[in-house]
């Protein structure tokens, strides 16, 4: 009788011990993982960040998949049983569910029955750094490069060994260099002076702002006069390295400013080329020029509406389409209004101003007064990264290239083709051209159509830079007139040089004077210039000038 309870007690203990073992056993890694996942449901953003850390440390096979889902807004929990699922898509009529543990599909559910586990910027940043560890194993070197950059921003005891491990295996030179930068940055936190000197040596070839700031900390003086870095040799090396980096950064920032100027200039050139033709060659002050650009931008929008699955291609289709739409509008304007007003600049100005209002209102009636959303194709977004100090935005780069192409084409049309010859002949001496059998009226219409078509093409470019709305044209018309007047009426090269120099001067001034003042300074300078050279940079020659 006595032994039985003792035996039972012993048995219970054994059972308890066994179950304890089994609990402990299950705690790694599935249970930790599921527990942390469950807590995600109700946690605040700060707690979620801690949970992300716990998930990462659980070492479970599906951590990366779950964290990616959280990052991409497709981690849900089911309302009736509170179970957490990964969704295949963030939204939709019915969301396919994936079990977070096995990563196998487990049915689908309507979005109403699911609650999304939300993130905010701070949390997504944490997630990005956590995911970077997994991305290091990616076969794509560019993904690895991004991952190393992220890890370099979050160096600690956990990430440094990962980087070291990767450095041994890494084959891509660019990624390897980035890892070395990260390891050198980490070495600066150590105590070993020799290692620090070697690290500074590695880092001195970098041009990144983060590296510069980290190095600058080394020779910073604390308030009590002591240095953060005790070794003087390290301090001197850091000072030299920072000086070198600053030199390079100044150089690259000058290049950057120059590019900014050039890209602003190319937008100005693009909008001024068309005007240089209508205003310059024909002498028509076309106040509706901006609205013809607006038509081009709306054409882009319409083309995108028609081919929603080919946004990348739509821009290329939109260029000829916009040329035709705006060109036809231009020819129509010329035939119905402007041709009756040749030689009466004031009336032309008023009439075309009226046309511009009509066009604006038409667009308002058709597309509504709200701005329309024109998508930027993927190949035009982002930037081309030259190095840590210099990155050139793709859309601006394309627009600079595009401007050069349009400019060359127009020049070729005017110089090499029959219609170009006719246009030049009529603009130089109308009566003589007529006597030689050129249909001047037809040429007038074509010239105006050409100028308007180019305005439309400029509109396609502008749709990638700014709002597409009824007021698009108004905001650019003054700038384009300024370029034409500055460059010299009737000269394409004038428009080119004028636009580029105005863009660069504007951008050189902006960092010092601010955008508002820079614009005023440019305007005043232009007025003074026109006072000195009333005919602009490249004064026109030909029949038109002899009259004046």
């Amino acid at each position: 009788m006595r032994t039985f309870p003792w035996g039972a007690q012993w048995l219970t203990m054994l059972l308890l011990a066994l179950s304890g073992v089994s609990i402990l056993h299950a705690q790694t890694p599935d249970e930790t993982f599921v527990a942390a996942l469950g807590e995600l449901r109700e946690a605040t953003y700060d707690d979620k960040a801690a949970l992300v850390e716990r998930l990462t440390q659980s070492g479970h096979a599906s951590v990366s998949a779950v964290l990616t889902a959280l990052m991409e807004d497709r981690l849900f929990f089911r309302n009736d049983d509170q179970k957490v699922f990964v969704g295949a898509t963030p939204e939709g009529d019915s969301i396919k569910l994936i079990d977070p543990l096995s990563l196998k599909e487990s049915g689908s559910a309507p979005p109403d029955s699911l609650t999304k586990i939300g993130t905010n910027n701070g949390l997504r940043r944490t997630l990005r750094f956590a995911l970077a560890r997994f991305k290091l194993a990616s076969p794509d070197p560019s993904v690895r490069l991004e991952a190393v950059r992220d890890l370099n921003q979050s160096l600690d005891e956990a990430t440094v060994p990962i980087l070291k491990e990767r450095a041994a295996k890494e084959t891509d030179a660019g990624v390897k260099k980035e890892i070395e930068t990260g390891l050198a940055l980490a070495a600066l936190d150590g105590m070993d002076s020799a290692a620090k000197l070697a690290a500074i040596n590695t880092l001195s070839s970098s041009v990144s702002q983060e590296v510069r700031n980290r190095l600058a900390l080394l020779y910073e003086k604390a308030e009590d006069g002591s240095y953060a870095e005790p070794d003087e040799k390290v301090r001197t090396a850091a000072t030299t390295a920072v000086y070198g980096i600053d030199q390079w950064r100044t150089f690259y920032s000058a290049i950057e400013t120059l590019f900014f100027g050039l890209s602003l200039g190319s937008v100005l050139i693009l909008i001024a080329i068309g005007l240089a033709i209508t205003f310059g060659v024909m002498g028509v002050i076309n106040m509706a020029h901006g609205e013809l650009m607006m038509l081009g931008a709306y054409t882009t929008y319409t083309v995108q509406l028609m081919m929603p699955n080919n946004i990348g291609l739509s821009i290329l289709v939109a260029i000829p389409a916009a040329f035709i739409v705006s060109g036809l509008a231009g020819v129509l304007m010329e035939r119905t209004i402007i041709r009756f007003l040749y030689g009466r600049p004031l009336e032309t100005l008023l009439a075309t101003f009226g046309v511009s209002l009509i066009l604006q209102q038409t667009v308002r009636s058709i597309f509504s007064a709200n701005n329309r959303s024109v998508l930027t194709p993927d190949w035009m977004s982002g930037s081309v990264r030259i190095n840590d100090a210099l990155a050139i935005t793709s859309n601006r780069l394309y627009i600079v290239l595009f401007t050069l192409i349009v400019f060359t084409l127009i020049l070729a049309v005017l110089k090499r083709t029959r219609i170009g010859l006719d246009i030049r002949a009529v603009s130089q001496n109308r009566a003589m051209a007529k006597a030689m059998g050129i249909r001047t009226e037809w040429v007038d219409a074509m010239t105006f159509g050409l100028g308007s078509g180019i305005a439309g093409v400029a509109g396609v470019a502008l749709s990638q830079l700014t709002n597409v709305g009824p007021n698009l044209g108004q905001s650019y018309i003054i700038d384009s007139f300024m370029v034409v007047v500055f460059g010299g009426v009737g000269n394409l090269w004038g428009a080119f040089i004028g636009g580029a120099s105005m863009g660069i001067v504007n951008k050189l001034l902006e960092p010092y004077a601010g955008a508002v003042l820079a614009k005023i300074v440019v305007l005043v300078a232009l007025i003074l210039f026109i006072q000195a050279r009333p005919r602009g940079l490249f004064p026109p020659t030909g029949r038109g000038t002899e009259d004046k």
Partner: protein
Amino acid sequence: MLEKDKVAVVFGCWTSVSRKSVLPVFEKDNGLLFYPVQYEGEESSKNVIYTGAAPNQQAIPAVDYLMKEGVKRWVLEGTDYVYPRTTNKVLEAYLKSKGVAAADIQINYTPFGHSDWQTRVAAIKKFGTAGKKTAVVSTINGDANVPFYKELGNQKVSAQDIPVVAFSVGEEELAGVDTKPLVGHLAAWNYFQSVSSPVNKTFIDQWHAYTKNPKRTTNDPMEATYIGFNLWVKAVEKAKTTDVTKVIAALPGLETPNLTGGMAKLLPNHHITKPVLIGEVKADGQFNVVSKSPGLVAGDAWSDFLPGSKDIEADWVTLNCGNYNKTTKKCSGQNYK
């Protein structure tokens, strides 16, 4: 309208300039204006009911949220006119009172419709890589916003690294925009269409039925107008007349439900109580609310953070004055000067 048709009440005005322009007329002819847009504060008129947010109901809570998120450096980027200038003045004083050094604040203004943001974004990027977490507080107006966000996206300034909080980018503004580069950036309002509450759902359904377009968005100034109209109806019921003087007297203290929960109460300073919401832009142009004020915030006409207006109080019930100086105990009369 006031002189000829003798209208009892006007709901309207959009920009601060338009409000400042009609103000003297409303005061001279004793009209009643419900102004539904968020504005810069520093004003309180007997004849105007401000149902939009004052800076302490929008700008300051947004800055508080970012401070909590660890932001130490600030760029105050605005369009060059009265609302950004006043708001930034209030914010600058507020940040300094919270111990932010002057070197950690950068203030810049650009002209209306500014479309070439390359230099500014590069400058913000540079300012943001100085080692401390940086955020941009944007009071950029209307059309200049899209190129700004596009440039941010292209120069790879992500909302995770340098978030931008805006006070005039709402659902209606996002409707005409490619939202890709904006995702994750913040906006502070007192109402978001995405807030799920029964009243809000009814309101949105009614709006869709009225516009016959299920894609039309609702936004903050619409809620403010809705509140304003309900307040006026209640005041008329209470005063049993539409006579302006009597309605104005009846208004303070009245309450009407907000669309996002809680009651909007009209305060003696002619501002109302509002919840403050901070949302992150989602890819579909709606907002994901990431922070909500614990209770309702009372609109403060005269900011407590500006030296000139600290002592000033507006009270149309006991003091009958929109510009009362607590230290000198004087009412300065016309307050829009």
